């Protein structure tokens, strides 16, 4: 029955990567949510969302983006402007417009608005950046990270600059972080199965041939950039509501490196890679940090260890743990059904 070619089984085979990864995350959350691992668990689930958002752009377009942490920062601060500290908001953000200073939005609308602001920033910056060739575009996103970092750092009246913003309500729980991770994964899955994802992947494989086939490479890249910017922004809102405090320097190169490492270790070009890479790297870092606190390895070597592991993966298994493919339904079906799915990545 499992190997039949019925519409139901075809549907199961089609959505299996999404379902399997979702079930893995639900299982991990169910096991760990009650115990004392709740904090690393929630942080890990938020990171899954960010890495999947990164996959939406990087995996499908083949262009490395170093700038998504800036969109996360935009989303986090936008959420803070709307939800933070009723009585001290004008101490932190004296320059905010009066509407924002006086109204407090509930959690869900606040983070969605944060995501929309981040998506808008992605749209504006994408207009300039997505015309560049692959490598130059990556450097452009690096410059974008620096620009937004500088702007947010200097614009003290809107962002409190170098100081820490405290008092954001703790609205993020393990379960709504899980829900958001699943939503992001669903969006990534739907996007990569859509004609937009297919066109973008065509430009990843051979840009000239894709252009000759009629793909508007600039437009497809921009669409992916905006979608991934939205999800990164909402993830930033979750992150701020998880920590309760945000500060501009925390959205800089170390976070960029960790999220990129999670994507590359898992396999840049697959959704399963994003999820599994995040789980693997989070577990690895947790273990190393426990070693560090016990004094078995010198301090700050957890991060160095992550860098070394990333280099080793790049040298010896460049396509990551999942080898750049999804995890497909393990039971072979009718030859026509299974074969056509395997060719998508």
């Amino acid at each position, binding site marked *: 029955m499992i190997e039949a070619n019925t519409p139901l089984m075809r549907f199961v085979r089609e959505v299996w990567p999404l379902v399997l990864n979702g079930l893995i995350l639900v299982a991990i959350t169910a096991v760990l949510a009650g115990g004392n691992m709740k904090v690393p668990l929630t942080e890990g689930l938020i990171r899954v969302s960010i890495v999947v958002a990164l996959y939406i752009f990087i995996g499908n377009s083949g262009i490395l983006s170093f700038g998504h942490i800036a969109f996360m920062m935009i989303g986090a601060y936008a959420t803070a402007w709307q939800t933070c500290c009723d009585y001290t908001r004008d101490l932190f953000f004296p320059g905010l417009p009066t509407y924002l200073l006086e109204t407090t939005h509930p959690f869900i609308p606040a983070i969605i608005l944060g995501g929309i602001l981040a998506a808008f920033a992605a749209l504006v910056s994408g207009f300039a950046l997505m015309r560049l060739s*692959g490598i130059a575009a*990556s450097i452009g996103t690096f410059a974008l990270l620096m620009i937004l970092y500088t702007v947010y750092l200097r614009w003290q009246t809107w962002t409190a600059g170098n100081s820490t913003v405290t008092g954001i309500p703790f609205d993020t729980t393990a379960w709504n972080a899980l829900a958001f991770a699943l939503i992001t994964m669903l969006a990534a899955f739907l996007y990569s199965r859509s004609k937009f994802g297919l066109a973008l992947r065509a430009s990843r494989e051979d840009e000239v041939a894709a252009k000759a086939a009629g793909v508007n490479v600039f437009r497809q890249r921009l669409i992916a950039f905006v979608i991934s910017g939205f999800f990164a922004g909402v993830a930033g809102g979750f992150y701020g509501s998880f920590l309760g405090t945000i500060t501009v320097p925390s959205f800089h190169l170390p976070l960029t490196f960790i999220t990129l490492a999670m994507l590359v270790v898992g396999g840049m070009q697959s959704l399963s890679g994003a999820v599994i890479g995040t789980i693997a790297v989070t577990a690895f870092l947790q273990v190393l940090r426990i070693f560090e606190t016990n004094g078995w390895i010198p301090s700050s070597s957890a991060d160095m260890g992550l860098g070394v592991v990333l280099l080793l993966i790049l040298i010896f298994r460049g396509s990551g743990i999942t080898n750049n493919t999804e995890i497909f339904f393990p039971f072979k079906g009718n030859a026509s059904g299974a074969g056509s799915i395997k060719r998508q990545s």
Partner: protein
Amino acid sequence: MRDLLNNKNFRWALAAVIVVVGIIVAVTDPVRFQILITSLSEGSFYALAALGIGLLFGVLRLVNFAYGDWVMLGGYALIVPSAAVTSTLLIGSFFPALVVICIVGFTIIIALLSEATVFRPLRNTTPPTMMIASFALGYVLQNLIIMIYGGRPKSAGIFPELLQSIDLAEGVSVPLLKIVTIGVTAILLILLTLFLHRTSVGVQMRAAAEDFRMARMLGVRANLVIAMAFVISGSLASFVSLLYVSQLGIMTFRMGTPIIVFAFIATVIGGMGSLVGSVVGGMVVGVSSVVLKNILPDSIRGFSDAFVFAIVIAILLARPQGLVPAKSASERV
């Protein structure tokens, strides 16, 4: 109009006219003359850094994010490895010429080690993979320095005599270091040009930058050319490091980041893979950075970096391939 702008001779003539007019405007007024010297100095500094990155990109298609961390290592080599609050100069206390030689040698060794351990195994993979690998290498180097030296900033005062101001003309006094920067960059550029055009290895490197596979078929030894590229890039990094530490006197493990941000931007707007483009891009970035800092009103002077970036984005919108694109940059179908 566009045809005229695409004409190479017209562009060179236009650039020369702009430069000459700019210099004439500048030297007539002491304040503007000072801005001229400062902006030339900044431009030279970024041109050096951009050249180190552009060279590796031209030969290997490698975007080297670890370049800033080579600069950082060159700086940290000056002091004794310890996590103490105050730092004691080790190499930094040698005779000045010996300091330069030691740091150049040290950075060259670091560059060659990076090549052997990280970049050689990845030589046949895609440019994005090499870029992430260089990013990871930079991260590893930064954390290595944190482990050895601690996370606090360290002070290192080398060549203090360079910080004194000298009077060039009436009312114009600039620190000697700025003039030294311009001079060092000019000398290094002349040496590099002579190397690339007059020596056998240099010609082989230019051939490899244009078409690596064809050059190998014609007898150019890949390992030699790549090793030379890393050696030159590393030595440029060491000069950047020495100039930077002389100017600031403080080192942190993050000191490489602002350097490579501007250096990358300079390379991109100058034209990736083109050496002249890297120098031009560095000059544009340096000059606009200094000029903006001087003409912006006080309230937004802190945003001068953001304005430089905005100018960069404007240039990229108008001309995505860079100001002086390399011949080999456009993909031939």
